[in-house]
């Protein structure tokens, strides 16, 4: 018995094509001189998947169709001298086709052995995406009506450096050896017969003839070679290093102030609000800032909620804002429901906008005209600070200057 096996009697039906695949795999592994513990065999769900117990290699038995992705993860996590082999059936290749294409596109270092017996053997002989036209299955006794996927061609298209198709029976250990020697993705499709369901439904079946009619041509194909995908370990630096906000100003705020900045997406609303929160911190306040916007980030409303407080903030929602600052029609439309019931507080409104019904004091100002749409939010917040003094306006100007925005905006000049 080969050193790659712990048990030579395989768990398949007598005459099943899968026997040949195991024998040829073992022969190929012996030919390239690997040791069993240098090999990881990843199996899918299907008759082929119960063979794990026969192998002396590492074995991993996963989910239906996902073996290629699982094997890709293993290969990405192991040093290159380890060999990762996938056993998958035509059913697994159908449900997991994307994993095969992605592994080929990435050129992950795995060898996929596709057991194509043209139907789902384990579940009773249903057709798969690799069942050829006219092939009879329990669900298609008149013959399968659709064409099959050509997996070697698909993986070559996706960038695989090696793909092959062999027709069992026969000795195809050398094709498997070539595949195993590829550094990167390789796939060998082995066309075989399920004696239990394939032969039962197609008693006059001649595999070679069927393969020829179906266009399942045997062959070995190569694509351009390129390095196998291996994620390198990087040195990275802490995410916390450049963040500190130092206190340089003071604020007269005693309690808490809640503020809404409403404008249009793409006009820097979120960034302006974030800078206000930082400026407030530089004046010794606690601050929170959260954003609300539709899923499209470049169109529609963009609303920021800011809470400034002398004491720690546990709840950062804003239900009845003290200040609402609206710079665009999108912002007004989105905040109308909140502005309408306001009984106090102040609404700052760009002069281009209609004054909505509200119990808040309304202050109409020219934000867009003076600062332009892109900086209307920043300028509106500066106006708010100049008129309320909640945070010294110079704290905000300084924060903006020191931010990446500082190079592009001269807030002090506005």
């Amino acid at each position: 018995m080969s050193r790659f096996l712990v048990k030579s009697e395989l768990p398949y039906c007598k005459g099943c094509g899968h026997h040949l695949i195991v024998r040829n795999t073992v022969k190929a592994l012996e030919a390239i001189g690997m040791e069993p513990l240098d090999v990881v065999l990843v199996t899918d769900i299907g008759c082929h998947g119960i063979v794990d117990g026969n192998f002396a290699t590492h074995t991993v038995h996963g989910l239906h169709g996902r073996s290629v992705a699982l094997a890709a993860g293993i290969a990405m996590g192991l040093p290159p001298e380890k060999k990762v082999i996938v056993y998958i059936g035509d059913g697994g290749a159908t449900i997991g086709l994307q994993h095969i294409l992605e592994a080929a596109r990435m050129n992950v270092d795995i060898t996929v052995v596709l057991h194509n017996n043209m139907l789902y053997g384990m579940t009773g002989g249903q057709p798969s995406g690799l069942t050829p036209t006219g092939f009879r299955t329990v669900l298609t006794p008149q013959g399968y009506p659709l064409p099959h996927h050509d997996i070697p061609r698909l993986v070559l298209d996706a960038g695989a450096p090696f793909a092959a198709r062999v027709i069992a029976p026969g000795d195809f250990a050398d094709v498997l050896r070539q595949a195993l020697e590829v550094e990167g993705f390789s796939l060998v499709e082995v066309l075989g017969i399920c004696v239990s369901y394939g032969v039962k439904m197609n008693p006059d079946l001649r595999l070679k003839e069927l393969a020829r009619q179906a266009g399942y041509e045997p062959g070995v194909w190569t694509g351009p070679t390129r390095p196998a995908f291996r994620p390198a370990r990087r040195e990275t630096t802490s995410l916390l290093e450049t963040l500190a906000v130092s206190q340089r100003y003071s604020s007269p705020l005693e309690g808490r102030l809640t503020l809404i900045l409403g404008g249009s997406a793409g006009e820097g609303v979120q960034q302006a609000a974030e800078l206000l929160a930082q400026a407030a911190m530089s004046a010794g306040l606690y601050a929170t800032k959260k954003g609300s916007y539709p899923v499209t980030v470049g169109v529609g409303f963009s609303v920021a909620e800011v809470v400034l407080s002398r004491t720690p903030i546990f709840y950062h929602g804003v239900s009845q804002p003290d200040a609402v600052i609206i710079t665009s029609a999108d912002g007004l439309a989105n905040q109308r429901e909140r502005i309408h019931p306001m009984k106090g507080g102040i609404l700052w409104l760009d002069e281009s906008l209609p004054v909505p019904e509200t119990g808040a004091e309304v202050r109409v100002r020219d934000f867009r005209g003076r600062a332009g749409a892109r900086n209307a939010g920043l300028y509106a917040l500066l106006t708010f600070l100049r008129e309320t003094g909640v945070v010294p306006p110079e704290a905000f100007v300084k924060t903006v200057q020191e931010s990446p925005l500082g190079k592009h905006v001269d807030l002090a000049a506005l």
Partner: protein
Amino acid sequence: MHPTHPVLTDGSRLIAEACVRAGADAYVGYPITPASLIFFYASRRFPIALPAPDEITALQWMAGLSAAGHLPVTATSFPGFALMVESVNMAYMMELPMLVILVQRLGPATGTATAGAQGDLLLLNGLISGGYPLPVLCISDLEDCWRLPPIALQTAVDLRTPVVLLTSKEMVMTQESFDLARLEEISPVRRTFYEGPGPYCAYDAGDGLVPPFVPVGDGRHQVRLNASTHDRCGIIRHTSDEAMANTRRLEAKVETMTPILYTLDEQEGAETLVVTCDITTGAAREAVETLRAEGVPVSLLVARTLLPVPTVYHDIIGRYPRAVIAEENHQGQLARLLFGRRLPPNVRTVTAVGRMIRPDEIAREVTR
């Protein structure tokens, strides 16, 4: 207290940094709001960061990396998590440590990607086919964003299991002033691989509940991992006694070894206990402070271990004449988890959908 290292930060940044400091070395991501910010930070910070083509692949890669000895992390939201469920079951059965951060948003289905929610707790309860428990820890504030990832990762390693770290949109995306000086140093998770004599069996836990771990590819021991029902050595079995005992062990280890994390802030004379978790903790804290300032004694239980449900929660709640459970979903999922669909008459819920629960809503229910 005066801050000594004040920053404006979101929870995502702290989570990503904490994971790496705790020894997580691989992040596998697929973009989804509101978890993409974690993906962004993780891509800058993790030693290995891989963008996956979909969430099924993400979890499969993580399982592969974990099998090879790495400690992988991902973050997602319901639509992505739904795709991961079968693979989470696989990793659970194979006993592969990993961390899945689930950032809740408003459902059902795609729901509203940019609105927060606490709607996935009942999904997690029963996620593993057969009802086997999955450890679920829940973040309640920025400090938890730092403190819980290392605990979750240590749990994943110690129990050889996927762990879910539950959070929600406003927790990981809202920026808050925060004093980094409050954060404690993080030490890397303690992890050893079995190096003893063979034969090694990947699921032989000996006298304990968790089998020692050897990565696949090991040069000394053969490793067999299996997602199907299997014996001690990872060989597929139908329903043999040994295999069923192995499956039952999965439940026993999670039930007995998941850390029990909560904060109980009790006040003498309090008749009501507020129970909460996740983003609603902030509103509950504020409600409790306000009530106490007004002379209404009230206690607060912040649950961090959500699954398996620590029985101590029942003990604590049982000590109070009244309990108010506050959570951001329609049904009262934490309440249902604790008491089923028929709540005891002295237990009330405060719920909301599509918005955060306000402190005044909790305070009103306490004084009602």
